[in-house]
């Protein structure tokens, strides 16, 4: 998947919106303190995680520039890193991202059927987001849960031993949470 930003398709956002709260800034300070003085660049991966969680589930170029300024590094150093690691989203994603593993061991346990089932149920293919902005489907490579296959990552946690019924339940659960939050 090509991950470069397509600037035109993304609504411009206010630079001011990209700013950590006092609380989050304290977290950034704490992360930076894990590394030797002057090696604050080491905090880049954890701070990008925090930024992605805080600013809408993806990293816009404003967010990355902001992180660069916090860590006193060049923006290109952030872009290089953000585009290298597969967990950073460089485009907006749905509220719930289904990251289904498709590598060998999961394939042996039928992940293809699960992916197809999700595709059918949500009407999206891998890499796409539903029109209501709720779900994104992604196929990913081995997540270190091969013995509990088929599986997917949803937010911070894994959902394992997937069946069609479980997928239905997960979708319903997400819809319910989303409705409650609105």
């Amino acid at each position: 998947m090509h991950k470069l930003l397509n600037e035109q398709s993304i609504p411009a956002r206010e630079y001011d919106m990209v700013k950590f709260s006092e609380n989050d800034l304290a977290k950034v300070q704490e992360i930076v303190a894990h590394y030797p003085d002057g090696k604050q660049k080491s905090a880049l991966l954890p701070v990008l995680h925090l930024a992605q969680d805080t600013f809408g589930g993806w990293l816009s170029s404003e967010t990355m520039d902001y992180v660069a300024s916090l860590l006193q590094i060049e923006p290109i150093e952030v872009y290089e890193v953000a585009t290298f690691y597969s967990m950073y989203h460089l485009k907006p994603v749905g509220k719930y991202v289904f990251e289904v593993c498709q590598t060998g061991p999961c394939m042996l346990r039928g992940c293809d059927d699960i992916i197809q089932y999700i595709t059918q149920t949500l009407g999206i293919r891998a890499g796409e987001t539903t029109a209501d902005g709720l779900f994104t489907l992604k196929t990913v490579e081995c997540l270190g849960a091969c013995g509990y296959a088929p599986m997917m990552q949803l937010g911070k946690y894994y959902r394992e031993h997937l069946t069609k019924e479980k997928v239905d339940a997960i979708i319903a659960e997400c819809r319910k949470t989303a409705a409650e939050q609105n």
Partner: protein
Amino acid sequence: MSEQPLLTVTIDNITVQVPAGTSILQAARKIGGDVAPPAMCVYSKLEGSGGKCRTCLVEVSKGSEKDPRPMPKLVASCRTNVMDGMEVKNITSPRVTDARAGVVEFLLINHPLDCPICDQAGECHLQDLSYEHGKEGTRYEFQRRTFKQHDLGPYIQLHMTRCILCYRCVYTADQLTNKREHGILDRGDHSEIATLIEKSLENNFIGNVIDVCPVGALTDKTFRFKNRVWFLKPENAHRECPDCCGKVTLWNRGDEVFRVTARKDEWGEVESLADGSTAWICNTCRFEKKKSSDWVIEGPRKISRHSVISQGHYEGKVGTTVPTEIFSAVHGGRNPKLLMDIHSVSEVNRPEIQLSQIAGPSTGNDFTTGKD
């Protein structure tokens, strides 16, 4: 300088003595000729470069006098230092020739075969490499990789499809400019040179990326006569420049300056000055000074490639007007197969296509759709 004991190393049965800290590649270049492995990524003037392209792999058949064991794997000669008593096989090793042919093939599978319309033609290290070490034809039957076009501003043209990811331009920006704005984005076979958000590269000295790029991925947008460098006459010239050494090569036709580059040595690297520093040039000298009157002309420049120690006949004088002769001259007497007989080796460069109508950068796709 204090007297350092010299180390003895034997490469393809030729013995040389070099100071400690010399890489196998540098030692081989001292011998010169075919003994010097091809090198696409290392650049002795850029710290940290090398190790990536793997064209310079050699076999170490004896580690050193102290530890004579051979090294089990082929090693990158650009990043492996000589030990006293070391024995190295380059072209005398069938393993090396085979691996190198593999590397060349890997470098070419996604490289567009657009040499006829590439600014770098005649100066491209990949072109040299492919006809010296490659095989004719390709076994790759898939679509070549393409990239979204990326504009780097008024000075530098990027053709990402031609990039071999040697990282030289990244080191250049890091080491010569005060702020790096481009880099390698994405990973694996999607990696690309880019700025993420389109940004024009105008940092003073950034123009040197054009000189370090071994292929036609980064070229000079202000070069007024593209594609056919062998019609031009190179001359050494200088000017009083407040920012850089001001020592350049002008590429002229008649009295007109078509292009300004840094001066390069026989390995294609920007030359060292008498004081040991590198003759990098600033953007002003490279992009803005296009009048003969801007320069003090020193005289014609001899373009030599590869070392002259072992074979004293690389007397290629550029300056005559017959293209083919000049071509073989700048290539040390070899006739470049790819350029002279493009249709026999290329599946996309078909004679019926009007090359002049293609607005670069071109990819294999241009040839199938015939876009104008």
